[in-house]
């Protein structure tokens, strides 16, 4: 019983020659300072959804950091259980704002996943799919657009009903099938195709800003992008949409494909370089969170370090920009009235809240709409379980988290459930479909909700 049990004084990153190749990579990639900064106080435990669901230490931020450190220290091998545990984390980063020691958990988990990915032996179909998605589709606008068109074609042509009826869908994993049902109608026409690359401000321009249109956003939520531009214009901003911009790279970064994430980041730096803008506006918490961390992502790249810092400093969420700098039009729900207001509630986007640290701004906006009652949902700040592609890779945990979420949503009796990120939006739709018991609750992006409720139909931008 004694082998390991002389209690150790923990020391410098040990110069261990790990026999296991993954251990070597982890040892090299994990930021040992961050691992040491975690003082194991446990303050992050109650914030963590996976700890809450399971109640066991390895499923907590403190536990995961301890596991990473144990690997770096040569105390354990990064076995399958270790890898699974790293993938079990939602990446919601709720553990960061509550951590008084300011441990950069998000960076640690990305480093761990990056290392795991370097050594991953995906089965042929999975690795093909990953390659197709991460290399083949997301980095390429045209292909994404084409994919959008084919999804739209699939949805509209009757192929969808054919597929649903034929049982072909049953061959896909349940989680993918569920997602397929709630996908909004895709569009082959993105925001630039509809509005061009420059959109003027209503009245005297307050500032010139750029829209980060996102990749998924611009295919599945092109309408939201359009509304974002128009809402910004109503509030007094001139909006440019640089054509060359690429996917933000968040999905890549979260899945451990760091090099590709860096490539995309560099492309975006180039795309926004000469746009002459004061802000880069994001309307998707998940994208914005990576954009504000480009400085960290490219910190080792001497040519891009400084431009990345300047870029990150300019990134802002649409709600925050509207609240802090905009000339807001007045909003009203014209189907309701003051005596019979319509109830709305809000689900925080984890990355908007925990990384971009914006949780007040969207609420302030929602509270300004006339004839609307804003009811705070219990634990609105807790992850909905969508977390990128988490609901596809970890369906069980995602399902549990979502079920709890929908209980809280139901308790608000809201007619509209609003959110600020496409992933959350899809997840909430899935939730309403699965657990809503036929409730009329509608899920919407805050921007769409607001734009549709500009008093007087959206031309009354008050100068």
């Amino acid at each position: 019983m004694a082998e390991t049990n002389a209690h150790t004084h923990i020391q410098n990153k040990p110069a261990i020659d790990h026999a296991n190749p993954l251990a070597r990579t982890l040892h090299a990639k994990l930021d040992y300072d961050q691992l040491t900064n975690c003082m194991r106080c446990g303050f992050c435990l109650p914030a963590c959804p996976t700890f809450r669901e399971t109640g066991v230490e390895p499923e907590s931020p403190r536990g995961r950091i301890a596991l990473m450190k144990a690997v770096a220290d040569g105390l354990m091998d990064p076995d399958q259980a270790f890898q699974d545990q790293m993938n079990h984390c939602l990446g919601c980063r709720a553990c960061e704002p509550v951590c008084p020691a300011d441990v950069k958990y998000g960076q640690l988990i990305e480093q761990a996943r990056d290392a795991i990915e370097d050594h991953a032996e995906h089965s042929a179909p999975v690795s093909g799919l990953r390659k197709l998605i991460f290399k083949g589709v997301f980095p390429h606008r045209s292909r994404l657009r084409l994919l959008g068109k084919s999804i739209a074609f699939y949805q509209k042509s009757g192929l969808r009903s054919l597929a649903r009826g034929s049982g072909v869908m049953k061959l896909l994993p349940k989680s993918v099938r569920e997602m397929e049902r709630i996908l909004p109608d895709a569009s082959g026409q993105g925001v630039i195709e509809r509005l061009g690359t420059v959109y003027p401000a209503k009245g005297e321009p307050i500032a010139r800003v750029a829209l980060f249109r996102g990749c998924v956003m611009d295919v599945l939520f092109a309408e939201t992008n359009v509304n974002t531009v128009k809402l910004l214009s109503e509030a007094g901003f001139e909006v440019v949409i640089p054509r060359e911009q690429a996917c933000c790279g968040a999905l890549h970064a979260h899945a451990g494909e760091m090099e590709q994430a860096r490539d995309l980041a560099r492309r975006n730096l180039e795309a926004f370089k000469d746009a002459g803008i004061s802000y880069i506006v994001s309307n998707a918490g998940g994208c914005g969170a990576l954009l504000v961390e480009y400085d960290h992502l490219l910190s080792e790249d001497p040519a891009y370090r400084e431009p990345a810092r300047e870029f990150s400093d300019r990134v802002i969420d649409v709600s925050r920009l509207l609240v802090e700098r905009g000339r807001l039009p007045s909003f009203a729900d014209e189907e309701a009235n003051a005596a019979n207001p319509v109830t709305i509630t809000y689900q925080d986007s984890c990355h908007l809240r925990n990384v971009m640290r914006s949780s007040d701004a969207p609420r302030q906006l929602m509270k300004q709409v006339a004839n609307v009652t804003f009811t705070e949902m219990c634990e609105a700040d807790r992850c909905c379980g969508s977390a990128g592609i988490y609901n596809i890779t970890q369906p069980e945990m995602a399902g549990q988290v979502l079920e709890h979420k929908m209980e809280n949503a139901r308790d608000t009796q809201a007619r509209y459930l609003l959110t600020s990120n496409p992933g959350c939006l899809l997840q909430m739709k899935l939730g309403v479909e699965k657990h809503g018991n036929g409730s009329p609750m509608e899920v919407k992006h805050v921007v769409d909700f607001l734009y549709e409720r500009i008093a007087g139909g959206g031309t009354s931008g008050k100068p």
Partner: protein
Amino acid sequence: MLDATLTMKLRQIVGEKHFRDDKEARVAHSYDGTPMLQSLPDGVIYPGSTDEVSAIMKALSEYGVPVVSRGSGSNLCGGTVPVEGGVVMVMHRMNRLLEVDLENLTATVQPGMITAAFTAHVEALGLFYPPDPSSMKISTIGGNIAECSGGLRGLKYGTTKDYVIGLEAVLASGEVIRTGGKLMKDVAGYDLTKLLVGSEGTLAVITEATLKLVPPPASKKTMLAMFKDLYGAARTVSRIIEMRIIPATLEFMDNPTIRVVDDFAKLGLPLDMEAILLIEQDGDPETVERDIERIREICEAEKADRIDVAETREQAEKLLTARRSAFTALARLRPTTILEDATVPRSRIADMVLRINDIAQKYGVSIATFGHAGDGNLHPTATTDARDKEEIHRVEQAFEEIFEAAIELGGTITGEHGVGLVKAPFLEWKVGPAGIAVMRGIKQVFDPQNLLNPGKMFAKETRKRVVIDRG
């Protein structure tokens, strides 16, 4: 490695899912909130009931395997680091509130319940459970009892020991004992309830607790008094008590603490002050008004530079939250934060603060001090780096001298965090050889095989006392 038949037995007792001996579980239960300590257990078990705990203890004692009871592992004395291996027994599954008795004003609770969840529950019923350690959002009631935790309200309301009136506990042999009850008086024999409170998992596994509740105070008022003169602040603490005012809270923060807390909680605290006192009084409104007024006068007499009385409850809550995050906010300065809780009679607070500063200077280490000044309970906190061995050595020397200074001023080596592993070598300084012998005797009766949290409380060797150089 545990014996294979034993693991089989343990699995049978709690079910497959609730016993683990894989590397992941062992690593994740090898530490607690104490810096620089780590040691792997051989297994981790999650019991669901007193019967299971009893069966587990029978099995473990049959095989002579040690056990460490664990709540949330937030303690700061190495209390749940399994230095002799064995099994870590996590109490989280036993987290139910069994009863709130509104006639007797008691609550009966399982040990794994989170303190803050418990407090929220009783407060919703219009009752009050005063012990409020800063870690209450994560700590368990069982951990609070085993450490006899204190909090911001300790000065007026006492600490955990003043609220535990009955316990159910499992001995090393697996036998179950019950002590006390829903009784406000009970002198039937030795007070085993009080003995188990603060026993740090070395005497028995607590499986149920009956806690005393009190009516909540009708009103509260919170104020901040800021001083450019550190000695003035510390003297104010002693003066308030001397004037026979017992505030609910009387907390102290020195300048380095003010800086980091403000950086973390963004409260706009004045950064040029040497010390801040956070004072709260509660009770009926007139008394509160009168006391706050008198405290203000004392602060003024001691040359406070600024006195703010919180206007709203939110404002007050924010200040209290700031104090609660002091320890962890200090961790932002350097990678490693070592905090102790030397305690002195409250009339000696000023002397102790100055002694700490002198000692820090002597060893060239940075120590920020905050704490429950009204209780005489200070938290000198060293910010350092575990990787710098030479500096850590100086920090250790400084703390030894701080312990020595505390005892010299009539104080103790730990006021609320417990002895655990870290302070075991110093226990004898406080209680003397005869005291240690009595304690060892008690341990022997409860746990003859030394299976319950071995290595804690009693050190193999007592540290030689440093000779304080007052040159």
